[in-house]
């Protein structure tokens, strides 16, 4: 996006016109209306920073209290014992569970979501597309606690079949073998999370695909491209950054999802090679499960794990930003 390049990149060749606009506007900001408006919007930005700073200080302070008294290694201990001193706790299992379940969720959800978004913008009959888009909008709005309720009472009982099938045909891989417990493992979490984030990714992707300049598509069609070629050459490159940002929104929800995970996972604080055997746990789920009964020190320890979730999210978002910036030459409504 060119406009975004204004602040990420001082003077990219492509962004020349918009930079000019920016400069002129900056000089023109002497009108009272402009000043007030700039003040208001900058003020909101600063307020956001202040809130963030307050949260960060609070988190770091309480996390530091806990980590300084950790008898185990905060990063590698496979245990979460904060009730009795000396406390021993570590985030290895949680990090593993969070990352694995999110990877599973993204791997399942992103391709399907992009497919649905394309379906809605380019394939579905007009009369069908409207209502379906509405239903998907609605599903994006279904609260996670409802997904949790559905996951625990409807999805989990139906997954034994799939688990048996995976074990029978793909069990040799090691990561898809099954010892026959209740199907409440990281894979189940991944599937539920995928279903949960699917509408969000679809929604935003659809909005982005819709913005593809008509001209680009028509030009491709005029050259004799098939519909798929139009999508590959005109739609996807244009929408890529939007899709990535949509996926990040979804990933954000997947990483931090609490109650839905807590209702369908059997966390055991242990790492299992197989996705199908109960093991792991996620940061958010662990906080929610342990928080109520935790001592003040235990709460500090849980907050420390929350801080790690923060850092992971940060890395993910940073990576996404980098991808978006590298790909920017392909996209942009103002090309």
């Amino acid at each position, binding site marked *: 996006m060119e406009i975004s390049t204004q602040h990420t990149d001082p003077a990219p060749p492509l962004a020349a016109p918009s930079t000019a606009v920016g400069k002129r506007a900056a000089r023109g900001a002497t009108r009272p209306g402009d000043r007030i408006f700039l003040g208001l919007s900058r003020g909101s930005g600063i307020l956001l920073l202040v809130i963030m700073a307050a949260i960060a200080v609070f988190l770091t302070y309480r996390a530091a209290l806990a980590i300084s008294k950790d008898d185990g290694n905060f990063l590698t201990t496979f245990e979460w014992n904060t009730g009795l001193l000396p406390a021993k706790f570590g985030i290895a299992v949680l990090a593993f569970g969070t990352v694995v379940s999110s990877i599973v969720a993204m791997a399942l959800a992103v391709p399907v979501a992009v497919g649905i978004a394309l379906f809605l913008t380019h394939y579905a009959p007009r009369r069908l597309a409207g209502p379906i888009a509405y239903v998907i909008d609605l599903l994006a709005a279904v609260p996670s606690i409802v997904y949790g309720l559905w996951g*625990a009472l409807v999805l989990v009982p139906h997954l034994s079949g799939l688990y048996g099938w995976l074990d029978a045909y793909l069990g040799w891989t090691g990561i898809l073998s099954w010892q026959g417990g*209740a199907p409440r493992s990281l894979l189940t979490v991944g599937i539920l999370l995928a279903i949960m984030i699917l509408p969000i990714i679809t929604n935003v992707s659809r909005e982005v695909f819709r913005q593809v300049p008509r001209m680009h598509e028509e030009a491709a069609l005029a050259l004799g491209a098939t519909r798929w070629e139009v999508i590959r050459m005109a739609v996807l490159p244009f929408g890529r950054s939007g899709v990535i940002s949509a996926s990040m929104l979804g990933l954000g929800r997947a990483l931090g999802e609490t109650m839905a995970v807590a209702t369908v996972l*059997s966390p055991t604080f242990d790492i299992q090679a197989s996705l199908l055997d109960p093991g792991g746990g996620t940061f958010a789920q662990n906080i929610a499960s342990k928080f109520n009964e935790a001592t003040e020190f235990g709460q500090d320890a849980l907050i420390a794990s929350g801080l790690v979730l923060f850092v992971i999210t940060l890395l993910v978002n940073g990576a996404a930003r980098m991808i978006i910036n590298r790909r920017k030459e392909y996209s942009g409504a103002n090309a």
Partner: protein
Amino acid sequence: MKLQRMNRRALALGALAVSGALALTACGSDNNSGKEGGSGSSSAAAAPGSVKCDSAKGQLQASGSSAQKNAIDAWVKNYGQACKDVQINYNPTGSGAGITAFLQGQTAFAGSDSPLKPEEIEQSKKVCSGGQAIDLPMVGGPIAIGFNVPGVDSLTLDPSTIAKIFNGKITNWNDEAIKKLNPSAKLPDLKIQAFHRSDESGTTDNFTKYLIATAKSDWPYSGGKAWQAKGGQSAQGSSGLAQQVKQTSGAISYFELSYASDGVKTVDLKTDAATPAKATVENATKAIASAQVTGTGKDLALKLNYAPKEDGAYPLTLVTYEIACDKGNKAATLPAVKSFLSYIASEDGQKQLTGASYAPIPDEIIAKVRTTIEGLS
């Protein structure tokens, strides 16, 4: 001006929502006495006579143990019918959160599955001006061990076998140790799915305390609210565990007896007595009868007897305490706290417990509780 118009629209929407909500206030009602005449009302008739509302009024906030939730529900219902001016809001957040909220001065009393620790009593002196927090035993709850083994209707286990099952040492239902205890049962060749709590819980604490007291060699852990053994499966809350036992073939788990409804089968416990004890309210009452008060002063913390000799006593129980200040309760809530606690400690109040699958506190101890409540200030 689009934004202003938008803001105005947002405001209008907000105003609409708020005014709509306010308008709705008129049609909402707290009065539920008309509709459900169902389960809880059988004992309701007896209640009003024993409830003394005195000058109590207002809303009373309380929180804590989810183990006694069903008992409190029944009490609040009866109490609310007698004292219309008092609303008692008990939030089953868990014992730890309950004590924390109480120590922060957010609640009038707390419910906890384990007595206060010395440092918590020390902290409570800040909230209870001139006094301290005390434990008042109110509810006895048998912890049932539910199982789901096709073709097996009754199962007897001893503490050491239970410990081995939950510790992953016994992994199949046709294990020799189980066979020996159940010579007549047709035990299938089925993997045991042992479920424990994924959240920290007073029930886990009491369950493992029992294992430590009775099968130390097979349960090499220090105990506590968090599950310590490796392996097995887990679920959130007693309700989650009960549900897993219902759904999963080969499952075994522990939860309060009141959750073992809808055909969940429970294990008979082999104790030092001649015959194994079934998990029932009566049997748990027998076991609690031999508990001893270990609290000092007005504090009535109990020590349970995990190895009763009496025939039929079911020793795997927990006791839930209500925690309040002995002196220095807030003036605004004191009458309501006193009135409500007096009701639940009364004969009528304790009688309610059996109906909800809980065990009443033995007469001798509950008498002390009543005197203590009288003296709350």
